[in-house]
């Protein structure tokens, strides 16, 4: 009843092609953005900003990057964390070595550097597919981390390889509080997410999906495989690179190469699997699930333990967390292999048929 398109007529091509063709969706997205931009800064506490919302947005961006590559273009990659590292270190070095460069330009350059590196490691994708490609991108994971520890120039000769990021100054104003940092991250993520949403609807996005579904057929209908695949690698790495720069500058403030480990790549991969492969919204849902669930359990478990008088130490909680987490991942994969985004889609379809969904 609430979610019904009846009566919404599209009389122009522009109306038919818009990003959210259904009025309810438009209202929903605008409300969500208003809440995120105005409501949240009014009410959220510092803990929420710096420990939950900022990392959530950053990982959602990284998951979005991987989703473009894996979900839309069908190229499995295990190097997302490495591309994040490239973005972080590149942004740091641009900021350090180019006099007076604005921080946002540094982020952009970090993303572009990551894109260039991504293309380099995407080259094998022209010959190999699937699992074999995943292993080839694994090389990026190891090589880049090694490279960052090996060449001290990249970390400004820091004795330990750890970099400490510069101040965030935008138009002469230094961003210090978590709220300001959150708004910066949010703006960048919203912009890039809208860009991605548009991109996957464009001819490029359709070419990616054609390649994903069957690359022989795609090349038969005239899609050039090489540029299509490499473009997917470039754009995906760009997103990961920007996410990496934000991770270093707006979240941790100091990063080391070992921090961008294979574990993190897997985490991002789980995000898109849980959230939904080949869905922009899935990246956000997945990031929320993977990041927020442990924190939620961390808060809830001791509370329930206290209620029933169980002797839970923080270690026990941590173990139970891992257990529950594993079980939930299995549950989701069995019940809905297409992820949370698919669940959302089903919910919408049922709403359209309401009150008699089937």
């Amino acid at each position: 009843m609430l979610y019904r398109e009846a009566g919404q007529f599209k009389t122009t091509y522009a109306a038919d092609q818009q990003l959210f063709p259904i009025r309810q969706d438009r209202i929903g997205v605008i409300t969500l953005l208003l809440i995120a931009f105005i409501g949240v800064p009014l009410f959220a506490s510092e803990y929420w900003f710096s420990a939950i919302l900022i990392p959530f947005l950053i990982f959602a961006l990284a998951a979005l990057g991987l989703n473009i590559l894996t979900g839309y273009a069908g190229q499995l990659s295990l190097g997302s964390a490495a591309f994040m590292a490239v973005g972080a270190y590149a942004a740091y070095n641009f900021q350090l070595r180019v006099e007076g460069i604005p921080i946002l330009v540094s982020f952009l350059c970090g993303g572009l550097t990551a894109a260039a590196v991504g293309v380099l490691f995407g080259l094998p994708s022209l010959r190999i597919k699937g699992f074999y490609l995943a292993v080839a991108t694994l090389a990026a994971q190891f090589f880049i981390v090694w490279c960052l520890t090996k060449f001290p120039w990249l970390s400004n000769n820091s004795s330990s390889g750890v970099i400490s990021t510069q101040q965030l100054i935008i138009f002469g104003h230094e961003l210090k509080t978590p709220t300001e940092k959150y708004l910066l991250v949010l703006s960048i993520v919203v912009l890039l997410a809208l860009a991605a949403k548009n991109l996957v609807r464009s001819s490029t996005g359709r070419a990616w999906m054609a390649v994903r579904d069957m690359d022989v057929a795609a090349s038969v209908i005239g899609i050039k495989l090489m540029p299509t695949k490499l473009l997917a690698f470039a754009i995906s790495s760009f997103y990961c690179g920007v996410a990496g720069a934000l991770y270093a500058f707006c979240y941790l403030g100091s990063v080391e190469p070992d921090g961008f480990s294979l574990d993190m790549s897997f985490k991002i991969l789980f995000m898109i699997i849980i959230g939904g492969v080949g869905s922009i919204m899935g990246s956000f849902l997945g990031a929320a699930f993977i990041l927020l669930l442990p924190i939620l359990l961390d808060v809830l478990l001791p509370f329930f333990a206290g209620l029933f008088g169980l002797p839970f130490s923080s270690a026990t909680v941590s173990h139970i967390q891992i257990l529950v987490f594993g079980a939930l991942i299995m549950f989701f994969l069995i019940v809905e292999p297409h992820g949370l985004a698919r669940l959302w889609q089903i919910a919408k379809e049922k709403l359209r048929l309401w009150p008699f969904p089937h």
Partner: protein
Amino acid sequence: MIKTCKPVLAAAALAVAMLSQNALAAEEQFFPMTSYRVGPYGANGQSFYGGFIDYLNYVNLKEKGVNGVQLTYEECETEYNNAKGVECYERLKGKAAKSAGPIHTMSTGISYALIDKSAQDKLPLAMMGYGRTDAVDGSVFPYAFPLVTTYQMQASAIVKFIKEKNGGNLAGKKIVYLYHDSAYGKEAIIALEAEASLNKFQLVQIPVAHPGNEQGAQWLKIRQEKPDFVIFWGWGVMNQTALKAAQKVGFPRDKMIGSWWTGSEEDVVPAGESAKGYMAATWNVAGKNVPLIADIEKTVYGAGKGNLSDKAKIGTILYNRGVSAAVLSVEAIRKGQEKYGKGKALNGEQTRWALENLNITEARLKQIGATDLLPEIKTSCDNHEGSGKVKIQQWDGDKWVPVSGWIEGNKALIHPLFQASAKQYAKEKGITPRDCSKEK
């Protein structure tokens, strides 16, 4: 009916008891604890934080807190993961606003991530034997304390020990530096290079990739090089592997000297016979010979309030290290109360002052029963390290035996390196350093 009521009644009684207890304990000193007991280094965290918490409870039991101020804590599991560490810090920060003891992360990565944040929030960060070592210069890092000693001073002290063993001369000798190829392993290089050019020995650097369970090539190289000594900066599984590999290529273990993170029971016991004779630096002795450790076992575990489930860990290197960290933190609270009022909890800013004005003498350590648990410490604004001394200990196949007194690294050589690095940091971050001559 009664049956269902019983738990409710019990809960209510408990709640009342807890409330009244809270009402009685007017002042509390809160220790935010970003600890880890699971994950790859969980075993180390268990011993360290077990010791730390046991000492806090010991002070509560023995003297009813510091001048009547109860010591409380809350743990948050970081799993040695930087991002989780930040999350934990943010979670505990609210509670630490009123009163805060020093935060011990026992992780270089997490400390790096917290340095700027803690300075902004005015919460003191203690990094005993790890972390950002140039924070020794307190004029740039007011809230960060690499207490007791740093990697660079340790490396320098080890070189001094080797030099003394060699009759005071190292010229023409060859020393291999075998290290974990990470931030941790690389910290000491700068100090060793400075020592090499000063003492005219040849330094051969051999990195081992994480996690370090494959060292065949490295030990082949060591055999070719025929070094006089191997200085060893290992981590986790890498340590036992190195000891076994040394035995395989026939390198004498008593020519191998490790850093303090390679010298715990967890490192040598799994290596078995091949660890015998191996030496490592440390700033705290192992064993229950220290009166304080024996007393903790009696008092805290006697009252059933011990933190460790595995009592065999009491008296191990890492357990004693946790106790020494707690001793230092509690002494800081005592010092702070002298200035800001006895019987009052200290906030972060006050604890910071206390950490910067510590003076723990040999006599005071003896009073606590902690002789040799840690060296004498005297901190100041321009010296957040406060000591720079280590002991060398040797594994006799059964226990660690100290084989030297306190050795201080070459401060005149190493501390200027810290100042230079801190200056660079201040420039990058746009920090105006404090004038230390105006601090008191």
